């Protein structure tokens, strides 16, 4: 194993583990600010460190610190304290590990060696995701059961019934998808989506399999237990459902697990239906071949984007009443300086690349970086859809949820398999 190998393994593991963890903070922020946006209010915007609020991100730090220092209560009436402690670990761990198979960039070819850009290099692909998310429900069941609380048990029952019923349409939607793609390897699936249909439409899963996309997305929402499928915790009915007895960091693990799960299922939806890390119309080969013009384009676009963002920020980040020496304006000025410094660094790197390293390995590294950014942006947008739906729709009732799963999604998924198979057989 060369040093390069070790470096890339570290890089992969780092991205595979830390990106979901970092996204917890981003998603909690997105959830709260997004909710506020939909609901005509401001959302958390007061917590600060020396006056720097980072658009409300500092609130997460405050919440985290609060949760760490809270009393960690294990109910005395619970007879299964080991499972009680184990349950949040299962939920969090499963959510985190299921990201390991999602490719966040195309395979990097360096010195003739291939480096797969995913957390764990293995060929299980989508099956790994299905297996691990199916396992996560054990955490919820254990939590509800070991809490020895009726609300907890009801929440756990709802969660398990829901996950089991929605895994079936989800799996069946995948079957028709796999018939089209002909592989379970997620990287190959993304490759497939880099092609063009009729020469101008990207062959994304959502174009080829719109019905499967709808079924899969609905099921994915149900799997992550989010509104309109948040019956397991439905706060108005079951108080907090399966995690009603949890406090402090054990509660936080459930909470963070939910956001990791949301991130992972967004990334899976992106990978399966929205071209994964692919930039539309620009496949990996194209990008590598035209690395120079792309980097020049970036050199032009980055300052423009920074200028637009800074303008917007300076306009909005100020107090809504007269304050002497407005600290918010001062804050925005500091952000502006930081942003322009970052722009300078990016420009310097790009200039350095163009002058000294263009052609060869640097091209491929540039493309990988671009694809990681694309992947994260797409995932972020899908997460926004999650937030959007949550703050728009009310919750299903338990039996209606089952009806939707078994009587609507399941037959539709089966129908989709028949149609897809017929078309695929006819075409081949």
């Amino acid at each position: 194993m060369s040093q390069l190998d070790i470096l890339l393994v570290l890089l992969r593991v780092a991205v595979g583990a830390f990106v979901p963890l970092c996204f917890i903070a981003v998603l909690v922020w997105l959830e709260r600010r997004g909710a506020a946006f939909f609901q005509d209010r401001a959302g958390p915007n007061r917590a600060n460190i020396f006056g720097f609020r980072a658009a409300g991100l500092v609130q997460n730090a405050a919440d985290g610190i609060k949760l760490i220092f809270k009393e960690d209560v294990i109910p005395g009436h619970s007879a299964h304290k080991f499972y009680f402690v184990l349950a949040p670990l299962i939920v969090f761990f499963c959510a985190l590990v299921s990201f390991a198979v999602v490719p966040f960039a195309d395979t990097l070819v360096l010195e003739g060696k291939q480096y797969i850009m995913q957390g764990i290099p293995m060929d299980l692909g989508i099956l790994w995701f299905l297996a691990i998310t199916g396992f996560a429900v054990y955490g919820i069941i254990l939590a509800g059961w070991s809490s020895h609380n009726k609300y907890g048990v009801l929440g756990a029952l709802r969660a398990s019934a829901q996950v089991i019923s929605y895994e079936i349409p989800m799996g069946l939607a995948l079957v028709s998808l796999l018939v089209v793609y002909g592989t379970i390897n997620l990287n190959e699936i993304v490759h497939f989506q880099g092609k063009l249909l009729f020469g101008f439409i990207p062959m994304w899963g959502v174009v080829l399999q719109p019905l499967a996309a709808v079924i899969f997305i609905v099921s994915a929402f149900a799997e992550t237990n989010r509104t309109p499928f948040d019956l397991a915790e439905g706060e108005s009915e079951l108080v907090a459902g399966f995690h009603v007895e949890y406090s402090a960091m054990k509660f936080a693990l459930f909470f963070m697990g939910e956001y990791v799960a949301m991130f992972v299922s967004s990334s899976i939806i992106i990978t399966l239906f929205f071209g994964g890390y692919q930039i539309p119309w620009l496949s990996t080969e194209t990008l590598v071949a035209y690395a120079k013009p792309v980097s020049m384009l970036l050199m032009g676009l980055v300052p423009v984007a920074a200028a637009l963002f800074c303008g917007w920020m300076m306009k909005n980040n100020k107090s809504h009443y007269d304050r002497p020496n407005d600290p918010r304006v001062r804050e925005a000025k500091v952000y502006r300086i930081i942003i322009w410094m970052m722009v300078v660094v990016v420009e310097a790197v790009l200039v350095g690349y163009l002058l000294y390293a263009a052609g060869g390995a640097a091209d491929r590294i540039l493309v990988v970086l671009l694809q990681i950014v694309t992947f994260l942006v797409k995932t972020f947008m899908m997460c926004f859809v999650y937030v959007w739906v949550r703050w728009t729709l009310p919750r299903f009732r338990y039996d209606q949820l089952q009806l939707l799963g078994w009587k609507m999604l399941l037959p539709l998924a089966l129908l989709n398999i028949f149609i897809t198979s017929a078309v695929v057989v006819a075409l081949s």
Partner: protein
Amino acid sequence: MNATALEKLQAAFPEATISTVLDSAVIAVQPERLIETLSHLKNDKDFKFSLLLDVTAIDYLEYPVAQEARFALVYTLRNWQKNMVVQVRTPVHDPDAGVPTATHLWDSANWGEREVYDQYGIRFIGHPDLRRILNHWQFKGHPLRKDYPIKLGQICYETDSMEKEIRARLALKGVSQSTMQDINTEIMFLNLGPSHPVTHGAIRILTALDGETIVANVNEIGYLHRGFEKTAENLTYNQVIPLTDRLNYCSALMNNIAYVKAVESWLGIEITERTKFMRVVMSEFFRIQDHLVCIAANLVDMGGLTNYWYLYNEKEASYDLISRLTGARLTSSFTRIGGMYRDFYEGWEADMENHIKNIEKGVSDSYKLVAQNRIVHDRTQGVCVMSKDLALSYGFTGPCLRASGVPFDLRKDAPYYNYDAFDFEVPVGTKGDLYDRLMIRYEEIFQSIKIIRQAMKMIPEGPIFVSDHRVALPPKSQVYGKIEGLANHFKLIFEGVKTPPGEWYDSFEAANGELGFHFVSDGSGRPYKVKVRPPCFYIMGGFHEMVEGSMIADAVINLGCINIIGGELDR
């Protein structure tokens, strides 16, 4: 009540003494004839008093005029088609021996009689579930009896298991003991509340569950009982007004208005035109507030939090006007007997127009999210249905009764304060399900806005207080300058507004339904007795009928939909 109806009543009950008080007829009968009379009033085609509004009792222990017996029992009935109110009175010679129950005639008698038993200790023979309702089960004595020592503190802290009641309810539903014990069909008991996100206060809903389906349900109220009626007996009429704020605290001003309207009608005071319009504007404005809270909370229970903000932001903004006008956000205490505390401030029209415009927008936004939403439809349509007859039997009034298809609204059927001059419609539901109850509230908001707009155009200038020296404080120049003025001021403040001796019932269409006040006056400045007829008390009495057979999630949204307000439920 008109003369022909009175003649008919006299003809039907030749032995009873019938008198008219305000708009209602009072029939005095002996306890032996009570049930016969009530059942005749309910079932006879001429009368059809399908609503039992309220049951209460009076303790005459300290009453200056000697009565036939220490206790008297009063049933207040209403015929909603012809808008007739009848009060049936009977003396109770021995409260421990009791009087026969009317629970087989009206279901609302169940909770009504329980309250009488709790507060006065009058037993009802044949009552299926005679136990305390507002006071704690360990409480000793009956607080509304005049000889109850009010300074006696009682600390009760043991919860009522209610196991007996829920098992009786299960048996009534045909669930046998063996079914309950068999592990495959075992029943799970689950308490929703008293402290639960859905109760929006403190109510205990004990359910017996088969899976998620509610097989049987019994409820415990009284967590917010603070003895409104007992307190009121020790205050002057005007001092009671701040207490009425705390009845339905979502629409505090409506209670103020309802209360003073009841007192004024007995005094025979004709308030000024401007006051009438002010009261209409404010009560419709508060009706909107009340419905906004109800819909918002209801949709939160359903999981749609965004609706809550669309509605609640506007309610919150309305408090600017309310606090500017009344000086308080929640506890307005804005009315006085004979008028209002203050006139509108300058420029209120613009503020009001601005607020109702915003409310219209917020409500329309929320309506758009709900009206075509399949999940909302599935959750609400055909769920927790209350049929017309059952709703009447349980004494439903207001939006919940109209949702069941009974077009009864006091503003239309017994107009007060010039309501007949306004052009507005009363929305009526068809099925009596959650959907109807929700949508009726949406529509009533728009109708109330319509009334406010009309009233704002019609409101005349003029005084806001009557010049009657019996109720109105004299101007300060007279208080400080003349002995008569000073004496008048002193007497009004210390002794209160003197009302002629007598008993009367007066009602008002509050946001939740008919808010009635039953007064007994001994001629002094303090009410001898006040009984509130809170609309949601009787609606809560029918809660189990709506939720049995549906699921936990339905019960949760149903509780929000019938708009239970602890303040008036428990008083």
